[in-house]
């Protein structure tokens, strides 16, 4: 008889060591069906995994099940990753689960399809329920993880496009079993408060199919449907299409795409405003030119009846057109200038308007100069000067024998006055 028997604890230690050092018993994948499921108040989950012939106890501790994004159910077929170990107090062996996924995505997919069908019958996905996404939102709500990449991506894109945008972040955990309730709560909070939001982006970066499961949960779908503020669903990557996309008022393939879609690029808006303004200015100038052409044709008829009055009329008309142009263009210029003085920083658009007004005004002045009395020479008029080079404006200031210079469009000629004949006034 052996005088040195092992104690039970010693044996258990040996078995434990044998199990834990055996590489085929650690980090192994095991498939089975869940039974005897218990969600313990401590946060640990206990269940058995079984197949037709055998059963093994499974422990799924809180630290490991924190990221589980769906609720386990009796009879659910799953695959687990874990290590076999021994529980000495009960003399049983068990598997400590590190990660768990449904056996085939078919299981989860089936649940989603069932939910979709049920909610669809309620009319939750009806296109008529969808609210319009605002063209130019000033204040946007974000429901996402406060530490995730989605938040960074959205802020980066949104603030680049519209630096003055106002953003209210409703932080929510977007992964794991707490996520559905947290997301729904964040959406409700943004709707309850008087936050005056124009739109909400519900965002989450890419992840596995299970990671995105919260966006397929009924409580989340219902919270989106109930939101008074329009919601854009921006979950995962291009290929992901959770139910939140179907119920939201709009969906975007990624969080940064949601920011691109929702937030207009203010530089583009500035350009658009500036474009219409330039078109208006050009059209107004054309209009002014038309007036001048009409006056032109009226006055040219008078050339034959009253040549002396032409210059006076032309000058009057020039003054009139100039006044009008000054009125239309410099008032805008001045008011733009006034505004500039009242603003702390000179903005791009106003510089642009000012610049283009100045340019247009210079063009207009140049046009007026081109039509100055000198240009009239082209039409057959002649300027008469005396020997001193002074312009002679009336016959009475000339005498027989005076030397004169005639300036025409293409040169000058000299001559001597033979006679004068003032008209009786």
């Amino acid at each position, binding site marked *: 008889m052996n005088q040195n028997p092992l104690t039970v604890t010693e044996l258990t230690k040996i078995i434990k060591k044998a199990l834990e050092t055996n590489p085929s018993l650690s980090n192994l994948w095991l498939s089975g069906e869940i039974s005897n499921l218990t969600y313990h108040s401590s946060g640990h989950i206990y269940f058995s995994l079984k197949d037709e012939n055998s059963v093994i106890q499974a422990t799924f501790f809180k630290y490991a099940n924190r990221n589980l994004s769906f609720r386990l159910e009796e009879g659910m077929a799953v695959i687990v990753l874990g290590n076999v170990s021994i529980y000495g107090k009960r003399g049983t062996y068990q598997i400590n689960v590190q990660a768990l996924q449904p056996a085939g995505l078919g299981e989860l997919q089936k649940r989603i399809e069932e939910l979709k069908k049920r909610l669809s019958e309620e009319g939750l996905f009806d296109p008529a329920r969808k609210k319009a996404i605002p*063209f*130019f939102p*000033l*204040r946007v709500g974000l429901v996402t993880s*406060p*530490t995730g990449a989605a*938040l*960074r*991506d*959205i*802020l*980066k*894109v949104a*603030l*680049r496009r*519209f*630096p*003055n*945008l*106002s*953003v*209210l*972040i*409703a*932080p*929510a*955990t977007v992964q794991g079993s707490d996520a559905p309730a*947290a997301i729904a*709560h*964040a959406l409700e*909070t*943004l709707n309850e*408060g008087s936050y005056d939001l124009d739109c909400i982006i519900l965002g989450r970066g890419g992840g596995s199919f299970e990671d995105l499961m919260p966006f397929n949960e009924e409580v989340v779908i219902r919270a989106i449907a109930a939101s008074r503020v329009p919601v854009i669903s921006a979950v995962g990557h291009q290929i992901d299409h959770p139910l939140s996309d179907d119920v939201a008022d709009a969906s975007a393939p990624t969080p940064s795409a949601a920011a691109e879609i929702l937030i207009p690029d*203010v530089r583009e*808006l*500035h350009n*658009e*405003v500036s474009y*219409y*303004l330039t*078109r*208006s*200015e*050009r*059209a*107004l100038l*054309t*209009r*002014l030119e*038309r*007036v001048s052409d009409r006056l032109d044709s009226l006055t040219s008829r008078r050339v034959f009846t009253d040549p002396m009055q032409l210059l006076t009329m032309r000058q009057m008309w020039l003054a009139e057109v100039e006044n*009008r142009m000054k*009125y*239309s263009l410099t008032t805008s210029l001045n*008011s*733009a200038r006034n505004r500039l003085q009242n603003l702390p920083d000179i*903005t791009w*658009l*106003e510089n642009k*308007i000012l610049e283009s007004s100045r340019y247009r005004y210079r063009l207009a002045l140049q046009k007026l100069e081109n039509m100055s009395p000198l240009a009239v020479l082209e039409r057959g008029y002649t300027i008469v000067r005396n020997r001193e080079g002074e312009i002679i404006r009336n016959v009475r200031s000339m005498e027989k024998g005076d030397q004169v210079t005639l300036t025409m469009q293409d040169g000058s000629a000299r001559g001597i006055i033979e006679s004068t004949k003032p008209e009786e006034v």
Partner: protein
Amino acid sequence: MAKEPKKSEKNLTFEEALESLENISSRLESGELGLDDSIAEFEKGMRLARFCQGKIEEAERKIEILQKGKDYDIRETAVKVNRETGEIEDDENLQGSLL
């Protein structure tokens, strides 16, 4: 100008103002308006352009995060964001920030 919705300029949305401005440029280009009307329309266009500008400037430019206070009330806390990276800079404000 019957096409123009009768809405005071102050109550316009940005989109409506932009559309109005586009209509004005088209009307001016059509050459149907008299000189005085042209000038009046042009000035209205200037006002609309300034209105659009104002809308862009008037936004508040603030980033806030909702946080639960000690007595479980929810309040907004302003946070600083790096505009290059989108990163929240004073992220000690994010500690325990879940609603």
